[in-house]
């Protein structure tokens, strides 16, 4: 198992390397570049000077090497539009995004397991069909539209929750204004719950027809016992992997949610930077978010290896 984990970590490092290369090259295609930083009135000389100053006239591999060296030391450069280092901006925003995604993911997965198992128990009955239909509809709803609907209903019409996320600077402050978290989290939960519940249902229905489930019935076990004593573990273990794989998707959703609710996380930062062509922020945030997803999926794989005896006890 140690070998498996070690291999997985090495793979992850390679993946992160690919990410940095891809993002670096993409960003070099950004139009405007230096000109947009200086504004329309800049003279060609000024542009050339800044270009040289930032090292942008050097070949891409050289620039990349320089950036990577800095990045490994925690230096991601300075924001062009905000007078702050990228590292400090990220340090301020990342925890908030993690709170949003972590909370949503935890709720979504728990909900999905319950719903998926219920559907498996009631498979091919009316309840199952209705739940499947609803799951599909939620999944098909664009995140921003879902957010808008929730705002219209719960904030505008019924005044139950605020339409704006808390603007606190600290995590504690976020939770202190907890009611502001309800709608952003609910949005993310609703659009992602279908992803997991469909999986849990399909997997549970599959496992219920497996030979080992039949063995359990042949022992004299009832359906409840078969479901909870035997099938459940076999269903849940792969969910961990799915969780890891879904992280990029959840972060995407979080970006949209953050922009809908003006939630001060990485997504909002990134969106504003994209609109303003703030090159260092775009680079830094993309890399950090990708590293986060990669770490997440490695953790998921390790958890899987620990949970599944077939991996745990393999030489």
């Amino acid at each position, binding site marked *: 198992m140690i070998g498996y984990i070690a291999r997985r970590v090495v*793979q992850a490092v*390679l*993946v*992160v390397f*690919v*990410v940095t*290369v*891809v*993002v670096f090259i*993409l*960003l070099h*295609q*950004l139009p405007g570049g230096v000109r947009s930083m200086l504004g329309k009135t800049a003279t060609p000389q000024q542009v050339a000077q800044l270009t040289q100053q930032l090292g942008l006239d050097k070949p891409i591999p050289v620039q990349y090497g320089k950036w990577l060296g800095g990045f490994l030391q925690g230096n991601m450069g300075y924001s062009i539009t905000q007078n702050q280092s990228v590292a400090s901006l990220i340090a301020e925003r990342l925890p908030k995004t993690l709170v949003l995604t972590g909370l949503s993911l935890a709720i979504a997965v728990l909900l999905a397991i319950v719903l998926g198992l219920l559907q498996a128990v009631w*498979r*091919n009955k009316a309840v199952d069909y209705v739940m499947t*239909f609803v799951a*599909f*509809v939620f*999944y*098909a*709803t*664009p*995140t*921003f*539209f879902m957010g*808008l*609907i929730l705002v*219209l209903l719960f904030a*505008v019409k019924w005044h139950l929750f605020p339409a704006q996320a808390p603007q606190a600077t600290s995590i504690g402050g976020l939770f202190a204004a907890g009611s502001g978290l309800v709608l952003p989290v609910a949005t993310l939960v609703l659009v992602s719950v279908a*992803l997991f519940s*469909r*999986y849990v*249902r*399909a997997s549970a*229905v*599959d496992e219920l*027809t497996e030979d080992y489930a039949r063995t359990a019935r042949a022992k004299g076990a009832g359906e409840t016992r078969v479901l909870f004593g035997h099938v459940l573990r076999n269903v849940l273990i792969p969910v961990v992997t*799915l969780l890891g794989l*879904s*992280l*990029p*998707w959840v*972060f*995407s*959703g979080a*970006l*949209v949610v953050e*922009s809908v609710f003006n939630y001060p996380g990485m*997504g909002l930062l*990134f*969106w504003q930077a*994209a609109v303003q*062509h703030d090159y260092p922020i*775009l680079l830094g945030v*993309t890399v950090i*978010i*990708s590293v986060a*997803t*990669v770490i997440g*999926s490695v953790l998921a794989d390790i958890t899987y290896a620990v949970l599944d005896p077939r991996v745990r006890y393999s030489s």
Partner: protein
Amino acid sequence: MIVPERPGAEPHDGAVPESYASAPQRGRRWIAVVGVFAQNRLALVSAAFLVLFALFCFIGPLVHSTDQVHTNLSIVNLQPGSPGHVLGTDGQGYDQLGRLMIGGQTSLEVGVAAALLATLVGALVGAFSGFFGGVADGVIMRCVDGMLAIPTVFLLLLLAAIVTPTKTTLVVIVALISWLVTARLVRGEALMLRTRDYVAAARSMGSTSPRTVLRHIVPNSLSVIVVNATFQVADAILVLATLSYLGLGLAPPQTDLGGMLNDGMNYVYNGTWWLIWPPGVAIVAIVVAFNFIGDGMRDAFEVRLQRR
């Protein structure tokens, strides 16, 4: 938005050994597939809905001709039911019903084209990568993993910031992100198929690798590819909508359903519900329909596979 991996296939209840169904049965496999698909009422209704919606978008403008190029600030935000404007008008004075038609056109066109492009590229890369394995496969898959690790919307924003959005560039951008999932899926299929005896048989007869991939691996992954392509269309339409919402969609007077929804959100507190609900419901309905069709096809193909 792109789903990392679709939930596992719907299991086929009641696996009855082939021998019970006895003697060889006549009938072409496609007929069998279509037959099972037709039994899935949801999928059938979805297909019918999509046909109707496509007719509405593409034939509709011939019946209900409106000016969707010039703004007309004298008839801004008219209520539905106003003379000549069944669904009212939007903030620029465009007829909302006519706008729904051209928005739907864009969404369908871009969604389908991007899905097709992504499927073609992804299927070929995946099939060859999985079949050959080894170092090339390792390199390709690490690159795919790397691209997949960047959350879709972040990648989209980067790409969209680089190019000016037109229908063509949107197709390319969306396809550039979508092919990764197809590639990984088809690679998995190829890994499994390459150990099949008929592939070994072809190799032992002296079949070259490209021939083996194109004659055996790709055709046998076809059901997976087709089903996935359907889901890809749904995802592409969602991605497109999200792009428009983030302000990186098509420039007016062009629009897609997401763009209309985004425009409508500017007036959301004015109670102009007709600017939000028609495009919003249309997006959800189209995406749900494609998903149901994909599900129905998966069932249909699997029955055939179950009978082998």
